[in-house]
């Protein structure tokens, strides 16, 4: 009780210094939490992958198409229960320079796509209307909220990969079944795309971006992938088949340098937290050398000294860490609001909170180590001679 009381009184002795240290730690912990959230958000797609979903794309690159004619051939391979396909459309909505106007736009098969992606929840009545109207589209709730899209609105997109002006009528708004489900996409009929391209650019029709299918048995996915790819090994469009998780990891690995940089910066921040706190604790304990000597003279034990220095360090680290964590949420929220489609899912995860709190606590312990050892090693006679 006495130690706790003295810890609090000591921490408040230089209020400005303590306040600045707490603020420094808070900013660092907030930055750490934010960067870890970015790193987590980057790989949300991997986490959201279904265990039995597989993707077949062009072996050369994701940007090259595959023939639509592969659909039935792939569907016949044993072990595949449901197949669908999608096509990246791209295009520009409103001012393309404004990143807020970016959201994924994909041509899909309305009859099968949502069977393969059951986490995309579309109200049945809206789905029915969507299926019947050739230029209808479905938008995710997040972009509907962001852009104010309502049922019946027309979304005009200026095509780039597929030139021309494209008008889509919003006929459904989907929501995500899980927290990690992306609600920032727009889907429309692949047939609409195919028909218009046949008119505008004959020869580009009859192509899709990638196939997605479900394996009846997840353990057979490698064998299925091999069978699919061997089937097209000598075709004009070879395939690369992999699990959705591997496919998403491939995307993430394209940004591995950025992710690694963020991770390195987040660990540098840990160092900064440590230095900020250690600086304060070293200064404080040096100033109190004589006081520790007096306490030891009176009969206080090394345990009391450890408690005083370690307690002050932990108290400041805890206050700074708590403040930093509290600030992480509005920062992440503001970021998510500013760039809603850059990271479709941007949540401060529990693991991030635990990690940031642990970092602050460990910094509290480590920052106290050197001054505590010094205080314990300083003899009483030396301590009494010291000038703080």
């Amino acid at each position: 009780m006495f130690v706790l009381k003295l810890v609090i009184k000591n921490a408040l002795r230089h209020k400005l210094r303590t306040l600045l240290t707490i603020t420094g730690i808070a900013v660092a912990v907030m930055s750490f939490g934010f960067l870890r959230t970015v790193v987590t958000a980057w790989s949300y797609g991997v986490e959201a992958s279904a265990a039995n979903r597989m993707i077949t794309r062009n072996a050369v690159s994701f940007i090259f198409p595959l023939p639509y004619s592969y659909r039935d051939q792939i569907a016949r391979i044993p072990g595949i229960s449901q197949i669908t396909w999608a096509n990246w459309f791209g295009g520009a909505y409103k001012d393309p320079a404004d990143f807020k106007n970016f959201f994924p736009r994909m041509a899909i098969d309305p009859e099968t796509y949502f069977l393969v992606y059951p986490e995309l929840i579309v109200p049945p009545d809206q789905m029915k209307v969507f299926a019947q109207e050739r230029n209808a589209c479905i938008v995710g709730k997040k972009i509907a909220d962001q852009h104010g899209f309502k049922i019946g609105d027309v979304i005009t997109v200026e095509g780039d990969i597929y030139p021309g002006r494209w008008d889509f009528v919003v006929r459904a708004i989907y929501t995500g079944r899980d927290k990690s489900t992306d609600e920032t996409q727009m889907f429309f009929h692949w047939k609409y795309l195919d028909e218009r391209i046949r008119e505008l650019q004959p020869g580009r029709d009859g192509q899709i971006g990638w196939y997605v299918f479900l394996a009846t048995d997840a353990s057979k996915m490698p064998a299925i992938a091999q069978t699919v790819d061997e089937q097209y090994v000598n075709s004009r469009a070879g395939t690369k088949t992999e699990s959705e998780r591997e496919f998403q990891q491939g995307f993430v690995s394209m940004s591995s340098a950025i992710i690694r940089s963020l991770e390195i910066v987040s660990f540098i921040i840990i160092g900064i937290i440590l230095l900020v706190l250690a600086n304060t604790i070293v200064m404080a304990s040096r100033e109190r050398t004589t006081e520790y000597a007096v306490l030891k003279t009176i009969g206080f034990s090394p345990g009391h000294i450890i408690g005083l220095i370690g307690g002050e360090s932990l108290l400041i680290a805890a206050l700074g860490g708590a403040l930093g964590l509290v600030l992480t949420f509005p920062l992440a929220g503001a970021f998510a609001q500013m760039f809603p489609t850059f990271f479709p899912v941007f949540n401060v995860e529990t693991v991030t909170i635990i990690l940031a709190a642990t970092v602050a606590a460990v910094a509290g312990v480590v920052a106290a180590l050197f001054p505590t050892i010094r205080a314990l090693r300083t003899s009483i006679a030396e301590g009494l001679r010291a000038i703080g």
Partner: protein
Amino acid sequence: MIEVRNVSKSYRRDSLRVPVLNNITISVPDGEFLALMGPSGSGKTTLLNLIAGIDRPDDGSIEVNGTNVAALSESALAQWRANNVGFIFQFYNLLPVLTAFENVELPLLLTNLPKKKRREHVEAALTLVGLADRMGHYPKQLSGGQEQRVAIARALVTDPTVLVADEPTGDLDRVSAGEVMTLLDRLNKEFKKTIVMVTHDPRAAEKAHKVMHLDKGELT
């Protein structure tokens, strides 16, 4: 009774050993008021620290009331100090974040005394030094003389048999120094405390029963 027999002490300065005390033998009977005088660096404070059990001799033995202080372990020595010795420092060494009451209470926190008893002891000690009305004051709200009297109250609150004082008037004006010395004299005469005091001040030394002079680590 304090028995210092053939005590030597040296300190290491880088690679050099600097002798501070050389074969000192003194005896301080119970109830004695001893003043140690001598020039700076003569070893007065070192001898005081050895008697008080806050430093250890290289050679020789120190017995205080039958306990060989030099033979005790660190934790036993800390316990022994808490029970037997009261310390008065030149610069008072009060904890600035604690009130006069809390500073005096410090040594009692290591005992099993309940809070009520601790309060009684602290109030008695502060009353004895004439600061009953200053209990809630912080050190910075007190004069130097008052701070030193709080330090004396802290030294005697556990009722130790021995008080050691290192230049207790060294930082005080003449009036305050006089008050402090009167108080120490009273503690010695009235409460039979054995006092060992280091001082440069001849007026302070006048209050002592016995004055010993040290020079270059030896008694002169």
